[in-house]
């Protein structure tokens, strides 16, 4: 799968003339229009969650799929982004746009510095460090009084007034979230077809060989880590602004990291279509399981079993299977 970027013929065609560019645009438009047409709030909430999943999974895929590095703590970006945004809005009266963008920039910078710190670590050591960073940040925030410690931060309901009241604000947040999702997809696509992406995939296949051929592997890894932090931080800011409440247990929930990994593996690591389709399928499956009396207790068991089956028997995920059956699709889908 990772060779696809090299093989597909349209890599050098201008962006606007590539079919995949328009496929992404169509997905974004579908997300934007579907609930808006007949004001379907229930559909909007379910698609909002799907957009969050797609954002998290696509950005996790930059590490997991492209460079082959597991980031167990990808949720730390989401949670920190949420905290910074809520804090700036509640304590310093920042407007939403400013707070969300500042959160994204701050979290990316944090990820870059941390990434440069752990750039020497490879393989399992890196994976352990990412578990450590999530727990360290969670433990720190739980004790950090300016951010409300373990009881968290609240936003007053008047916070939605500048957006035209709570009802309208929810729609605005939804469209912004779909925007973040769209940016995630274009980011994944842009990186995959760039020289930077080529370097990342080279690291994923053979890090020593990549380094020998002149890929600055530590810098590339740190950059990928930092880039994969930006959009999840924006999503976190929007998500927790929507709830008007944030606490460490929700913000740094390793369960959400897990779900993002299941989604990437389910759809197919290293592809762009895979995590998107995987996120949608997973969201549907989850919705069905949660409403069923018997299965709602077994959500973890089912995620785990699903992941195990994929890892053992179908490491390429859904897209790997599809490419195996219809190889010509590789020319259109990424």
């Amino acid at each position, binding site marked *: 799968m990772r060779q696809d970027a090299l093989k597909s013929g349209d890599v050098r065609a201008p962006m606007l003339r590539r079919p995949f560019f328009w496929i992404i645009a169509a997905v974004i438009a579908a997300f934007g229009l579907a609930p808006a047409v007949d004001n379907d709030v229930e559909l909007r909430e379910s698609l909002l969650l799907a957009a969050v999943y797609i954002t998290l999974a696509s950005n996790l895929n930059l590490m*997991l799929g492209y460079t*082959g*590095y*597991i980031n*167990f703590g990808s949720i730390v970006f989401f949670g920190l982004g949420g905290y910074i945004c809520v804090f700036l809005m509640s304590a310093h009266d920042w407007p939403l746009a400013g707070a969300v963008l500042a959160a994204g920039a701050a979290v990316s910078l944090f990820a870059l510095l941390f990434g440069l*710190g*752990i750039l*020497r*670590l490879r*393989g*399992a*050591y890196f*994976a*352990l*460090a990412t*578990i*450590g*960073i999530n*727990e*360290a940040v969670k*433990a*720190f925030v*739980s*004790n950090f009084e300016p951010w409300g410690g*373990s009881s968290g931060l609240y936003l007053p309901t008047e916070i939605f007034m500048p957006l035209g009241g709570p009802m309208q604000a929810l729609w605005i947040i939804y469209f912004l979230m779909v925007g973040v999702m769209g940016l995630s997809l274009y980011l994944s696509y842009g990186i995959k077809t760039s020289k930077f992406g080529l370097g990342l995939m080279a690291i994923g296949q053979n890090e020593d060989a990549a380094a020998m051929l002149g890929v600055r592997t530590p810098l590339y890894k740190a950059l990928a880590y930092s880039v994969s932090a930006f959009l999840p931080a924006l999503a976190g800011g929007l998500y927790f602004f929507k709830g008007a409440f944030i606490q460490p247990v929700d913000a740094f929930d*390793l369960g959400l990291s*897990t779900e993002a*990994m299941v989604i990437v*593996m389910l759809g197919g690591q290293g592809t762009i279509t895979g995590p998107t389709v995987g996120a949608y399928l997973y969201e549907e499956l989850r919705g069905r399981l949660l409403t069923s009396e018997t299965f709602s*207790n*077994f*959500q*973890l*068991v*089912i*995620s*785990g*079993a*699903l*992941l*195990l089956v994929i*890892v*053992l028997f179908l*490491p390429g995920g859904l897209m790997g299977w599809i490419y195996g059956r219809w190889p010509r699709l590789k020319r259109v889908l990424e």
Partner: protein
Amino acid sequence: MFGIVASIVDGVLIGSVYGLAAMGLTLIWGVMDVVNLTHGAAIVAGMFALYFLTSAAGLAPYAALAPILVGGFLVGMLLYWIAVHRMIGRPPLMSLLSTFSVNLVLIGLGTAAWGTVLFNVPVTLPGVSWHGYTFPGTHLLAAALTAAMAGLLYLFLYHTRLGKAVRAVADNREAAELAGIPTTRMLSLAFGLGVALASVAGMLIATLFPFTVLAGDAYQLKSFVVTVLGGLGNPAGALLGGIALGLIEGLAAPFMPVSWTLVIEFVLFIAVLIVFPGGIFALRRS
């Protein structure tokens, strides 16, 4: 002053048990380069095994050690065949994901069966008094049993044919195979041993503190910290790392709330990982 010394001594006693858990993790890493993410579930399994062996089967708490050791070993061998065997020789990503997913299944089943309520195994042992401070008997006995287990592991690895075969596989799997060692069997044996050590450590922890089904994550993280302090793949280093962690916890306890020690531990974990990727107590392995 005595208060601080007593707190440190107590921290070291508890820390040695963390070291025992980490020995299980690091043994598996050393032999097959797999980070066993079912480690936390194995620790919790040991805790619940103790709970049910004492409450339902009516065993004395420390008599449960032998069945837990054997049971952990057998379950570990089974886990090897389910989740790890197909991953040997593949990128570390795959074994991390496969053990991670088994962990999810086990913790999910545990949560469905017992919820997340607190369990407690009452153990009464007379403590030892020293300058007005009493060290609980459970802490002393847990440390003593840890020392005994570590000694047995050492004897096994260095003074039995089977143990030497396991170390040979750890050093060079292909050469071991050529020398006629059934490497796959050695791998599953080592995985079983690692899980057995983790579940015995879990059992000992359950004699010290109350626990929930979800306790595994926290202790698994402690094992990571300990392993990284001691150097991945180094059982003796793991024991020292556990003692060092206990020392830090004991030293910090009189001065700050317990929740801050977590922050210190994880910051230390990441700092050590960055500065000494080989571990602070990176002794020679063979």
